[in-house]
């Protein structure tokens, strides 16, 4: 550390931290001192590509298996994440739909869960800003309110997409995505390989290729290998951040602290610091995803462009959410779902169906005997979600009746969706959550807890764009 005291200390360098910093740095004076503590290291995309090609990279030592970073009490449920510079921007698949306005008002509209203390209109300008910063590709005309064009044009529709869009209009759209449809801002055009965790052509937005200018800012000091595990709190004010680096103990002093690690580590830090809020760590989870293969009679499903080529909202919104969950359709364009019958190789479509889940009290994150490692307890899915699967199976054949469907084949639910949501939920009432509408801890008023951990309810939509917009919003409102 270069300084004995900082104006802001940020934990993590993923989406939540980086978008928060982007806004913060645009608003504060040039003499501010910011310390960023990153658990992992910088592992460049070019080096990750080498490893994928079977070549040696000196950076491979920085690969940190997620299984070793947490104690996962239910090994059937997986929680993949990436630590290191850029966090999960290194491994995400680039899906960036906005939430629907109803996602923020689940209690008042459907009597489910709680309403968020922010709504769609609050986030709307920050959605635009995040979409611009990520150079999102997307269509004009969306099921959520949005005016004008996305920064990049939409990806190409397949023939199946065209039929469904013609039938359902704005309920079936080219997916808004951070996989570039055109070369832009140092990123290449998506080459449709559907291998997006480490994009072969660097078309996907990552913090490394983002050009946000955050970590190059002279006000920012970035320390790698700093494993933050607790905070020093006096009279409900956070004074210091406690971390280990190369096995040694360190403390950093700051005016304001922002936890931007994932919900597992944010919770671990809070609980180790003595946070007694009964909801801290409680009610985390993610959507449930399952695949349906749609065998087509006499139709090649060709012409599509990218991993998730389209989103279908036909099972998403409506009065049914009083009884069962919303479902977002992700229309995949994956090469591995080809058929083997002669002449029918490409006569297939594959949809991944994402069902929202509820923040259940029995799914929780807590500390372990090792102060650096959180313990993760995920025990159940809600009946609200499972009922939505039953409904989907009844209604999907009708929805797809505009296609020449030969048969549908449902695959088993996936063990993970790559989204870790909840654990430090937002609320207006301190009794109902951990942080307020600006992601400031209800008790520790100089502490932000960023990221999807703050989501009051889960939505069926992918969380990254919304958590990035929330970071912009929180920093804009607070500074």
């Amino acid at each position: 550390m270069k300084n004995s005291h900082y104006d802001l200390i940020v934990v993590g360098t993923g989406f939540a931290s980086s978008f928060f910093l982007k806004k913060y740095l645009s608003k504060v004076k040039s003499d501010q001192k910011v310390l960023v503590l990153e658990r992992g290291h910088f592992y460049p995309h070019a080096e990750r590509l080498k490893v994928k090609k079977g070549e040696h990279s000196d950076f491979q030592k920085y690969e940190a298996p997620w299984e070793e970073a947490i104690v996962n009490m239910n090994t059937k449920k997986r929680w993949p994440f990436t630590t290191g510079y850029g966090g999960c921007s290194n491994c995400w698949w680039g899906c960036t739909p906005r939430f629907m306005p109803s996602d923020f008002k689940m209690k008042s509209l459907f009597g489910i869960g709680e309403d968020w203390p922010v709504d769609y209109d609050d986030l709307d300008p920050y959605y635009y800003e995040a979409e611009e910063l990520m150079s999102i590709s997307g269509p004009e005309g969306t099921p959520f309110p949005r005016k004008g064009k996305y920064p990049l044009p939409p990806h190409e529709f397949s023939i199946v997409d065209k039929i469904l869009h013609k039938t359902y209009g704005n309920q079936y759209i080219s997916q808004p995505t951070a996989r570039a449809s055109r070369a832009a801002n140092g990123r290449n055009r998506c080459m449709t390989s559907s291998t997006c965790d480490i994009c072969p052509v660097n078309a996907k937005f990552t913090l490394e290729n983002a050009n946000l200018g955050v970590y190059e800012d002279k006000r920012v000091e970035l320390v790698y290998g700093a494993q933050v595990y607790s905070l020093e709190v006096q009279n409900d004010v956070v004074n210091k951040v406690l971390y280990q680096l190369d096995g040694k103990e360190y403390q950093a002093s700051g005016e304001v602290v922002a936890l931007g690690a994932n919900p597992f580590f944010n919770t671990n830090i809070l609980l180790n610091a003595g946070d007694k809020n009964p909801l801290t760590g409680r009610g985390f989870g993610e959507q449930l995803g399952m695949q349906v293969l749609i065998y087509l009679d006499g139709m090649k499903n060709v012409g599509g462009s990218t991993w998730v080529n389209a989103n279908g909202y036909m099972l998403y919104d409506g009065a049914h959410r009083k009884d069962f969950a919303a479902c977002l359709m992700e229309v995949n364009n994956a090469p591995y779902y080809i058929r083997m019958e002669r002449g029918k190789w490409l006569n297939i479509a594959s949809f991944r169906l994402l069902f929202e889940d509820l923040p259940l009290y029995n799914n929780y994150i807590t500390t372990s005997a090792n102060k650096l490692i959180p313990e993760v307890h995920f025990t159940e899915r809600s009946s609200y979600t499972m009922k939505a699967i039953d409904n989907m199976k009844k209604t999907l054949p009708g929805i797809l009746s505009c296609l020449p469907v030969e048969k549908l084949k449902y695959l088993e639910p996936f063990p993970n969706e790559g989204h870790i949501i909840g654990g430090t939920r937002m609320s207006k009432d301190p009794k109902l959550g951990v942080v307020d509408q600006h992601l400031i801890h209800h008790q520790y008023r100089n502490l932000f807890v960023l990221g999807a951990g703050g989501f009051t309810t889960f939505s069926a939509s992918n969380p990254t764009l919304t958590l990035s917009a929330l970071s912009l919003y929180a920093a804009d409102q607070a500074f």
Partner: protein
Amino acid sequence: MKRRKFLLLTGLASGSILIPPTLYFVSPGVKQFAALLIEREFKYLKLEPGSVAHYVDDYFAAGGNHIMTNLRWKTMYYLNMNWEDSNLIFELIRTFLLSSDFFIHKTDETRIVRYIGLYNPYKSPVPNPFSYLLYPPDEIGEP
């Protein structure tokens, strides 16, 4: 007993069978059976001579070349199994198609099918077979 039920009981469908040792020791090289399975599945295609053997060499070199996997290939061949019976066969022949120029030629059965490198988005030149790169918008038209 129906064949499907037999396969399930013996574990071949899921890949957990005990195979008679004689079947292993009296048989020719294991990769040959994988190649025979591919040629049998694609008997209606014009496979370039040597392409399948080259592919199988690369496929096994890339992984899965342990003794139990090898034994299964022989057994599956002798039991006249196809891709509907076994995920292993499905994976083998699917990867062969993806590793060839079959999709580049838009599934044209009249053309010779050549192996052009084990399918790998990071190394091989084979595009996503569903992609607009092979079927541009003006070609697929409007519904």
